[in-house]
């Protein structure tokens, strides 16, 4: 994309008005549970080794998703809890908030999961996650030297994400 006249990434990023520095950390997983990217901005807790931490986060989302689908009062058909679902089947959650942090979650039908952990006072981040997905497409997927399914080591992507998250409201 950068080679042909450098257009902006569409859609343009959602307007942010915050004072910034609300981001704690971000994870990107693929369907196989590989943590493609982990960024950390503000996280005093360091009790787990990185791999355990990623697995725990992935497991939390995976279970929470099947629970939310199971409890869906509007759908007639649902399998037993824990029975594998087809991607896109059933409902899903997009965020939860505790008194100390907020976790926002987005999953694409191709199995890419983007998780952003921010301060509890941040607003709806669904558009922002979509924007980060667009950044992932432009900087990672379109990078011919990137092998799909492997951890991302792309400085340009990291700095762009860092900068974007810094200004989140």
């Amino acid at each position, binding site marked *: 994309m950068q080679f042909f006249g450098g257009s902006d990434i569409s859609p343009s990023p959602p307007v942010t008005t915050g004072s910034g520095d609300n981001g704690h950390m971000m994870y990107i997983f693929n369907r196989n549970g590989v943590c493609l990217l982990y960024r950390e901005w503000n996280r005093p807790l360091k009790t787990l080794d990185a791999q355990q931490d990623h697995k725990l986060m992935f497991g939390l989302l995976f279970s929470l998703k099947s629970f939310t689908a199971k409890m869906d009062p509007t759908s007639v058909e649902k399998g037993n809890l824990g029975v594998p679902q087809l991607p896109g089947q059933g409902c899903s959650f997009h965020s939860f908030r505790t008194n100390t942090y907020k976790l926002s979650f987005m999953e*694409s039908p*191709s199995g890419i999961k983007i998780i952003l952990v921010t301060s509890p006072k941040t607003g709806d981040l669904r558009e922002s996650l979509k924007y980060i997905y667009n950044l992932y497409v432009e900087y990672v997927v379109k990078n011919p030297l990137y092998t799909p399914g492997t951890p991302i080591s792309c400085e340009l992507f990291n700095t762009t994400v860092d900068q974007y998250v810094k200004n989140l409201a």
Partner: protein
Amino acid sequence: MAPIAPRSGDAVFANVERVNAELFTLTYGAVVRQLLTDLEEVEEVNKQLDQMGYNIGIRLIDEFLAKSNVSRCVDFKETAEVIAKVGFKMFLGVSASVTNWDADGTCCSLILEDNPLVDFVELPDTCQGLYYCNVLSGVIRGALEMVSMKTEVTWVRDMLRGDDAYELKVKLLKQVPEEYPYKDDE
């Protein structure tokens, strides 16, 4: 916030970066030409084009999903329509039509009247077995595999071989459910 409706193929096509069609067509032609020189066997070239398409497809799916706002692909019928109307439009600037559904809805045909890949192309006698656009079948197979649909994509009609349209048969083999990826003992 209500879910955003998927964008139409035209809307996406109008907003993405495009390259000159002639440059695109000639570049693809040069790739096929080089493969014919390198691999010598037409059958091998078909295979290689399909593999190249597959590698493109597994990446292209994310761009497709990000830009088209499609949020779920569970129903195969719906998916085929989206490929024909949005996917082809977005990446090739043409749309396809979906026909010939079989009784259980797992097999259909995508028909392309217009195909930008083949401008200026005429198959010489030595290449009669070549599926010149085989990259397309690979792209579709790769992209669908990333949304958990295992498919088989084959050419039924090819204008370069004297047919009246391009027809791709897409057969759904299996939909793979999402499973917890880690083993318990890890």
